[in-house]
């Protein structure tokens, strides 16, 4: 088969590249499964530590369950966050990604989506188990799950900003938490407020709507900040 090699190439469509990045990143992640599993095990262990620390009384555990689950989710998210850009930065793929003839924001959004699929979805799957372990009253399970569903995109989006800024440094970890956790305070507040409202018999619609707004805001604006951050790091 002799194919004409030049001048027949069509201009690349951004949608196509978007899908390619998602497919590639998912494949790469599937080849290093332990990277995915470790933050999840960390989350489980932290959850296990709480009853050991504050005592196994079901009433006190039920009262702090939502807060504990959210704080642990934040911490475990910090743990696996670097994966968004670190490997691509080391092997030079990130540089190629920024040279692609599509808007960098698009590629960044694809990477944020992949990160959400790989880190948040497993957490969503084991949430009922965590709620069970901490004795969260069953009427609040659905709302807790909803807060995680619409709140975790904020983690991936804000996390991408932090990683973009720190990826060229070798001491990312603790610095990353210092940068990101203060920015995530509203998320924690709204999420636990929604669960508490449910437990108090009030509609959680208000805090849920606020998380939703925060989520939309960060997912739409983060790619621009990530692009600026990557420009600094990749040089």
């Amino acid at each position, binding site marked *: 088969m002799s194919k004409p090699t030049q001048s027949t190439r069509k201009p690349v469509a951004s949608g196509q590249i978007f899908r390619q990045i998602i497919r590639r990143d998912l494949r790469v992640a599937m080849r290093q499964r332990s990277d995915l599993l470790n933050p999840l095990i960390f989350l489980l262990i932290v959850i296990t530590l709480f009853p050991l620390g504050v005592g196994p009384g079901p009433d006190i555990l039920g009262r702090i369950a939502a807060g504990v689950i959210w704080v642990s989710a934040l911490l475990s998210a910090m743990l696996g966050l670097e994966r968004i850009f670190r490997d691509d930065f080391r092997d030079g793929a990130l540089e190629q990604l920024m040279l692609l003839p599509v808007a960098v924001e698009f590629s960044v959004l694809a990477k944020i989506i992949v990160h959400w699929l790989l880190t948040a979805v497993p957490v969503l799957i084991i949430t009922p188990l965590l709620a069970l372990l901490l004795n969260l009253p069953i009427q609040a399970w659905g709302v807790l799950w909803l807060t995680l569903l619409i709140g975790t995109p904020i983690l991936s989006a804000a996390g991408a900003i932090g990683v973009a800024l720190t990826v060229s440094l070798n001491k990312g970890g603790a610095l990353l938490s210092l940068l990101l*956790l203060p*920015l995530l305070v509203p998320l924690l507040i709204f999420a636990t*407020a929604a669960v508490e409202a449910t437990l108090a018999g009030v509609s959680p619609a208000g805090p849920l709507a606020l998380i939703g707004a925060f989520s939309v805001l960060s997912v739409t604006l983060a790619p621009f900040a990530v692009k600026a951050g990557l420009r600094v790091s990749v040089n």
Partner: protein
Amino acid sequence: MWQWLHPYAKPEATFHLVQKLLPWFLIPGLILSAVALIWGLAIAPPDYQQGESYRIIFVHVPAAMWSMGFYVAMAIAGLLALVWQIRTAELALLAIAPVGAVLTFISLFTGALWGQPMWGTWWVWDARLTAQLILLFLYMGVMALYIAFEDERAGAKAASILALVGVINIPIIHYSVYWWNTLHQQSTVTRAITRLEAPSIAPEMLYPLLVSIVAMMLVSAVLVMKRLNNEILRREIHRPWALTYLGIPVVQRNEE
């Protein structure tokens, strides 16, 4: 519109402008600080409820006000640095950050000192205290990110981005913390605090407070300006203009 800004992209021009403005901040700053302290600490009447210990307000309130104001100033410097690639704006951001962080710390520290005799505790999870603590973390993040980079320019750019992300987030953080505070059942201490702030302040106390607010701004601005100029000098030490300013004779290097 930004025409007037461009000359100051040159560190030398900024240096001389700051040098020229410095006395206009320093002298009124010192005079007003003296006035505010003497007026506030000695002349203003004691509070009918809190006695003499309320006088810490003349340090606490200005510091708390400008801790927020300087964060916004820092973010504006970051915006100038990122959008117009003005290097002196990066230096301004780095000059502002520690001063703002210290103001935040002063407001927290004097708040604790004030809280101990008034509320009987050093710390309560009051909305204002919590928001201020988070502001301190934001300042620390900006400084830590800058320090972590080996390349100073890359560090300054990264810090600018973080300052901008932070300034978008500050109102959200602020309102969420207030909302969190009203949502949770408040301790009696917190409720007592919120009752205390209801009565408006007497004019004999208000005027020294206003003076102290202006004085704190001027003195902090002087610190920022000195830091900025020192940093410019440090970076430009090999340039002829810096050498002539410092009184070091410029050695003409001869190739022959």
